[in-house]
């Protein structure tokens, strides 16, 4: 493989992995608090369409990202209202959010189909961007790529070094105990759910404003679900989320490069495109085979409703 191909594939892999990282890390926090939000796909779709619309109207992609984040949080707030205040079933509510979000995004996004945005220029980090092979791929990137790295480091610190992270883990493990020693379980869970929604919204915004600067119905294409699978694959550890996201990014990019390379291989493009989805399944199987891996690492109260007694 020649050097420029390597660099461009690495570049594309990082770009493809970025929305997965942002969304999956948000969901990780969400799940660490014991709340399972299956609606990531819907929150991402809403984030994507809101970001696109605002960027299109205002011309400012950062306003767009803020709008995407806001839309994701609004969806998450709706979910929180259902499962935290009204104690609805988390699985059913998450599915509802996924279906509703995708539908609502298609509805409000109708006028923006077939509208193009200007590509946002990358941010070049002086000096290290000149490194051979990896410099151009890693350090001449979109701002949100750098954000995803900052998010990763911040989360590592938050979960393992900060008091708030300790409280979050405690709430996810045993909400009843956390309540008994005086923590406001519901409020903490709301914050975690909102954080998850905010990240899903930003992840969606990345897709529609930076990745492929356009809006199309169904453009999230299962990335919300893949992010959910990533969190399981990563056994709720941020580092493994990073690794997993780039692996998926690599799979997506490889199949695109094969399709676009003009290599004379006789393999239908549609079947190649299904590769990332098969990869998700394979990875899930690999990580779930030993039941204890999941059981030991998953937040104990994940998915279980909790209501403090008054």
């Amino acid at each position, binding site marked *: 493989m020649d050097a420029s191909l390597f660099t461009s594939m690495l570049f594309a892999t990082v770009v493809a992995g970025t929305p997965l990282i942002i969304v999956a890390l948000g969901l990780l926090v969400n799940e660490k608090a014991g709340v399972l939000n299956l609606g990531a796909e819907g929150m991402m779709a809403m984030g994507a369409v809101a970001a696109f619309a605002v960027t299109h109207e205002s011309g400012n992609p950062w306003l767009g990202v803020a709008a995407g984040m806001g839309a994701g949080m609004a969806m998450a707030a709706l979910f929180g209202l259902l499962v935290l205040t009204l104690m609805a079933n988390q699985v059913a509510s998450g599915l509802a959010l996924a279906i509703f979000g995708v539908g609502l995004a298609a509805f409000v996004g109708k006028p923006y189909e077939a509208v193009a945005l200007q590509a946002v220029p990358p941010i070049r980090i002086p000096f290290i961007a000149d490194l051979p092979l990896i410099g151009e791929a890693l350090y001449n990137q979109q701002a949100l790529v750098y954000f995803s790295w900052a998010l990763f480091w911040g989360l590592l610190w938050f979960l393992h070094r900060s*008091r708030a992270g*300790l*409280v979050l*883990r*405690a709430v996810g*493990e*045993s909400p*009843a*105990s*956390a*309540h*008994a*020693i*005086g*923590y406001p379980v519901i409020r903490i869970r709301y914050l975690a759910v909102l954080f998850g929604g905010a990240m899903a919204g930003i992840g969606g915004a990345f897709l529609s404003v930076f990745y492929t600067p356009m809006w199309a119905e169904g453009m999230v294409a299962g990335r919300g679900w893949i992010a959910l699978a990533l969190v399981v694959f990563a056994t709720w550890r941020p580092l493994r989320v990073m690794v997993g996201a780039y692996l998926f990014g690599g799979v997506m990019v490889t199949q695109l490069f094969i399709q676009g390379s003009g290599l004379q291989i006789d393999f239908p493009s549609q079947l190649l495109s299904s590769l990332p989805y098969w990869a998700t399944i394979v990875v899930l199987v690999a990580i779930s085979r030993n039941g*204890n891996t999941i*059981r*030991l690492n998953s937040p*104990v109260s994940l998915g279980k409703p909790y209501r403090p*007694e*008054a």
Partner: protein
Amino acid sequence: MPIPYPPLQPDTAAGPARLVLQGISKAYPTVVANHDIGLVVRAGEIRAILGENGAGKSTLMKIIYGVTRPSSGRMFWEGEEVAVASPAHARSLGIGMVFQHFSLFETLTVVENVALALPGKPALDALARRIVEVSERYGLPVDPRRHIHALSVGERQRVEIIRCLLQDPRLLIMDEPTSVLTPQAVRKLFETLRRLADEGCSILYISHKLDEIRTLCHTATVLRGGKVTGECIPAQETPASMARLMIGKELPRCEHDARQAGSEVRLRLAGLSHAADDPFGTDLRDLHLDVHAGEIVGIAGVSGNGQQELLRVISGEAPLAEKFPVQICGVEAGRLSPGRRRRLGMAFVPEERLGRGAVPTMSLADNALLTAAHNQGMVAAGFLRFGRARAFARRCIDEFDVRCGGTAAAAKALSGGNLQKFIVGREILQAPRLLVCAQPTWGVDVGAAAFIRQRIIDLRNRGCAVLVISEELDELFEICDRIAVIAKGRLSPVRAARDTSIEDIGVWMSGLWPGAEHTAGAPLATETPHA
């Protein structure tokens, strides 16, 4: 400002009133948990709160600790009226609480658990040193860096106590603290509590165990049906007189006559070993046991020593890879499903009533279908015969005195005692040849407990083999013909109940029975006696 309510005898007053409750009531939609409760606790006083399950003890403590808020009433702390808004507020006042079901986080370390309950942001290293200091001072050894899930139940309790002590409490609430301890460990705990009281800390000690209260407590307040029914000085009472205060009548006793067991082995464990499915569980190691027709064999032990795993292996919920280690009515059953084992004549009453022994949201008739469907002809050609299910549920209700709204009542609408009577009835009325029973009367009121014990004895008198696994030694000695102990996943020799004593069995519960082997270096899952 001294508050002269309720009147206390002067000689019980060890100091000024630290906590005073006046007219505390707490109403839930379905029940009134507390009604017009008055209480005074003085400095350095150990006061028992005595009452049956459901008498309102735990609710009252949660009110004092700020977990729940009272519907009405006043609370005074060191002379000032307070409304405790939260556990954090309670702790800042100087109130600590050790919960019955611990409020610890399994996947966190000891020091992290303690940090969560302290105000501010304590540095974990410094905190670990303080934990060691306190633990040495009060004889509560614990390693601050270990994860909670790796600790025994007794060690966990120490963590809870240390967590309270680090905040220099002036009132310590202990909710049924001895239900998880061996008799020897209970004595150690009492030493610690007396020392605390001598230093001026007040202690509210919640229990339904009369002899413990007589040994430990200066004073006692008795609750029944959410109301204060009396006060006493335990040292001046007999267990019988306190029981009368607690339940309003004489303690019921079971009729248990000595009897020759049959020769037929209905349950045999033949070198049973099994690695726990749960990563935090206990492995079973080389268990041998015979239970004959017409006898009740009891297995004692501190919880978490392999009881759960043993029960799942016997019931078939955790089937084995081999057939021979579990033999039911002469059949090698190690690999059979629970349903197949039932067809061999086994019945099983699990420890958890709601969610395992019964489906909470389903009616009693549906819950009858749960285990009796085939045995009682409730299925024909794959379809259910609801009439038969209702009739069988009706029989359970009538013959086992289940107070409920009929066969259509949901299982979760029943009180613990009535649901347990229903489940025991459902299993016994299928005329089993072998009954396996876990914690048959845990959390059940005294009347229902005596009723259930008597029914188990009657079943044995009709020739059924019965295995009872319980953490209540009194119960085992009341109904069992023979008793063994489980500790660290191993089973002790079996002794005739009349040839042994609670004290001996208590020693065995630490894993120290004649011929017991100890692997060097392996941490004991139970309490070891500290010299």
